[in-house]
Every structure is written in structure tokens, then in C-alpha cells.
């Protein structure tokens, strides 16, 4: 065999290797994105299961904070309904509703030193923060995976493989285009209190 043939064969092998690994990237990304969506549902369910707990222990100290308590109850109902339906967008919206109530509770707790020193409440607040973090990170994973996939889909040279096998653009999570979450409210500006 002459050198030229060996070189051509080597180049072809590299090309095939690249094509296969790029194809595999797209396929495995799709599978991972699907798994990431399930993970969000999973974490939202976990959060939903924590709320009845929160409701019963918050009842005592939130007596005067009627509005918060009602918001909490309706958030719980929305989450329960969404979990039952199994629709990701609905679950995510319900989770967002809950996420709005939690800071209100923490402010109520912060303002009341008597409650703040209560062990059960502190523990509960920690669990709440943790569970909303978990939901946030599971959403982030989905966002990152979708972004990676979509970037590779349109950038050269992987886009040739994407168009050859017609991999479609994937959507991550929808966020409402307008609403409170795009504005900074006064409670957001409050300096966070650090407990050491």
C-alpha cells in the first residue's frame, strides 16, 4: 500500500469517528434531556410532599398572617393537582407559585424573634430552602443540557450531522415573558440575614 492510500484511509477513519461521536452526542443529549425533565417532576413532587408538613407546623405561628397562610394553601392545592396531571409545565408553574410564598414566610419568621429561635421552625426553613434549591438545580440541569444541544445543533461542523439526521431544536422550560419575576421587588432588595 502506498503512503497516499494509508493517509486517505486514516483521514476517513477520523471522519467516521467524528461523525459517529457527534451523532451519539445528539442522541444521548435527547435522552438526558428527557431524564432531566423527569428529575424536575421528581423534585417538584418531593417539594409538594413537604408542604402539608409545613402547613401544619406553620399554622401555630402564622395565625396573624392570614394572607400568607391562604397563599400557602392554594399553592399546595395547585401543586397537588399538577403532580396528579403529571404535566411538567403545570408542575413547574405550581412550583413557582410556591416559590413566591416561601420568601414571605421567611420574612415573617425573620421579623419574629420568638418564632425564629424555635428549633422546629429553623429546621423547617432549612428544609424549605433545600427543597427549592433542589428544584432550581434540576431546572438548571435541563436548561444547560438543552442549551448545549441547541448550540451544537447550529454550530459548525456539528450542524452538518444535525441537519443530515434532522435533529430538531428542543425547547427547555418556558418562562412567562412578563410578570413579577422580571421585576425586582422591595423584598428582593432586603439584605439577606446571615445566621451563623
Amino acid at each position, binding site marked *: 500500500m502506498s503512503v497516499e492510500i494509508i493517509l486517505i484511509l486514516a483521514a476517513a477513519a477520523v471522519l467516521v469517528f467524528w461523525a459517529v461521536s457527534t451523532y451519539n452526542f445528539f442522541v444521548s443529549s435527547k435522552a*438526558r434531556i428527557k431524564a*432531566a425533565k423527569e*428529575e424536575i417532576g421528581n*423534585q417538584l413532587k418531593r417539594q409538594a410532599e413537604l408542604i402539608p408538613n409545613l402547613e401544619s407546623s406553620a399554622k401555630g405561628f402564622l395565625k396573624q398572617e392570614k394572607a400568607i397562610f391562604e397563599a400557602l394553601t392554594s399553592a399546595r392545592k395547585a401543586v397537588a393537582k399538577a403532580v396528579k396531571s403529571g404535566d411538567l409545565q403545570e408542575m413547574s408553574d405550581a412550583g413557582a407559585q410556591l416559590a413566591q410564598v416561601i420568601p414571605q414566610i421567611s420574612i415573617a419568621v425573620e421579623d419574629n424573634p420568638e418564632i425564629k429561635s424555635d428549633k422546629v421552625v429553623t429546621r423547617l426553613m*432549612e428544609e424549605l*430552602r*433545600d427543597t427549592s*434549591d*433542589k428544584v*432550581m*438545580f*434540576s431546572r*438548571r*440541569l435541563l436548561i*444547560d*443540557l438543552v442549551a448545549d444541544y441547541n448550540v451544537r445543533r447550529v454550530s459548525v461542523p456539528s450542524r452538518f450531522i444535525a441537519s443530515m439526521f434532522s435533529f430538531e431544536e428542543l425547547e427547555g422550560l418556558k418562562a412567562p415573558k412578563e410578570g413579577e419575576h422580571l421585576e425586582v421587588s422591595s423584598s428582593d432588595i432586603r439584605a439577606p440575614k*446571615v445566621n*451563623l
Partner: protein
Amino acid sequence: MQNIYEVQASNRRKSWAVIVGFILFFTAAVWVLSQAFAVYLGYEPGGLGIVGIAFIISGLMSFGSYYYSDRIVLSISRARPADRKRDYQFYSVAENLSIGAGVPMPKLYVIEDTAPNAFATGRDPDHAVVVATTGLIQKLNRTELEGVVAHELSHIKHYDIRLMSIVSVLVGSIALLADFFLRASFWGGGRRDRKGGGGLIILVGLLFAILSPIIAQLIKLMVSRRREFMADAGAVTITRQPSGLISALKKIAADHEPLEVANKATAHLYIENPFKDKRKDAIGRFAGLFNTHPPLEKRLEALEKMS
């Protein structure tokens, strides 16, 4: 001002450049040494045979430390498994971040020591271990702890432990080769004249035998420092909050207590140099070449660019 994706990309490029440089140097050193051997002994010792032997010995020596790295380090460092109740912050932060990073949850361990520090080890994400000291868990708040744990998870995600093990094997084989050569020339001084004109290559071989283990070691440390920058950037990709890691690093650096269970063998694993011996003059800069970690100021600077 660079966004996190640009930082990631430039880190990856620089890291590759260092690794390619290392491979080129390794090949050159091995070639020169084996040539010198051939000339010196007066015959080809089975082509690259002697290199193969050095590689296998070095590989065998490092294999154990690579394959059982998690268990060995844990027993050296006297760590206990973390408990969700007892180490709530550490445990839940690690749980959340591994969801965010898309890696399986690593095993968590705690070292009872008030010096704040943390490290990760394990050969792949399925066998990963993250260890924190009780000092770290107590002295940092949740955001700072997230920064530190994300740094460790990013080491795991990018297979840094595997990379450093491979580099160690290569450095080890160069050291062995050089050692073989020096010993051989010590014993068999008389054979030099068997083949004419080999004087130069033997001289170069001698030079390489003396210098290449040091140079290889220096490049290995360069790789290590590069990977620290990468892990810092990776941590920000996971948390999207450089401020957490910045203030955590400042707190860790401000603490002057040395970590008792750290030794030279495990130092490179930690998030910050556990020995705390820093000098800012020329000697310090020279000593910096031998550091496993980049200087703190450089790391903070890189992180602040991202925020």
C-alpha cells in the same frame, strides 16, 4: 469581562496546550534517553523495550493509587462518612449541586479538623468522594459551601483525578528511565568506545537523564494548576454565583491553621494549599513553580472577571 462560556472555552484550550506540550516533551525525552541507551550499550535494547519496561513499572506503581485512590486517601486522612442529620448543610448542598451538575451524588466524608479545607478524589464520577473538614462546614455559609463543593464536583466531572494519575504515570516512567540510564553509566563506564561517534548522544542523554525528571515534574504541576482554574470556572457554571467561591477562598486563605492530616502526597487534592506557607518575594515566585495550586490572587482575579 468574559462570560462563563468563554472562560470555559479558553480554559479548555490552555489545558489542552499544556497537555500537548507535556506529551511532546515526554516523547522527546523518551526518544533521547532510549537512543542514548542504545548507543551506550552498543546495541538496540529491543527498540523501545527499555521504555516499555519503565512505563509498565511506573504504571504498576501508580495503578494502585489510581484505582483505590478513594479508599487510600480516606484512610490516610482519617475521614468519617457524612450524615444527613449531622452534616446537614454539607450533605444537602452536595446533593443539590450534583443534581445541577448532572453527576451521580458522590460519597461524602468529613474530617474532624478545624482547619477549613476540602478535596475530591475517586477514579470516575461513579466512584467519586468529596471530603470536607468540620472547620469548613462550620466557618462557611451555605452559598460559600456551594462554591467549594461545586469546585470539587467540577474536578470530578472533568475526570481531573484520572488525568493527574495518567500524568503521574508518565512522569514516573521518565524518572525511572533517567534512573536506569544514570545507574547504567555508573556501572559500565568502559563500554563507551564500542561504537564510534556516540559521545554526543550520550552527553545529551546524560543531560536529559538529569533534567527531564525535574522538567516533567514542573509540567505536571502546571497541568495541576491549569485544572484548578478550570475547576473554579466549572464551579461557577454550576452555581452561577462567583461570589460564593470568592468569599469562601478568601476565608480559607485567611485561616492560618495548617491541616494536620494533609501531607505532601495528598496536598494537590485540596481546594487550597493546606500548608499555608506563602512568600511574596522572588523566592516565593520560584517556589510557586513547584506549587500544585495557582496563587490565590490569580484565582480570585479570574473569578471576579466572571461576576
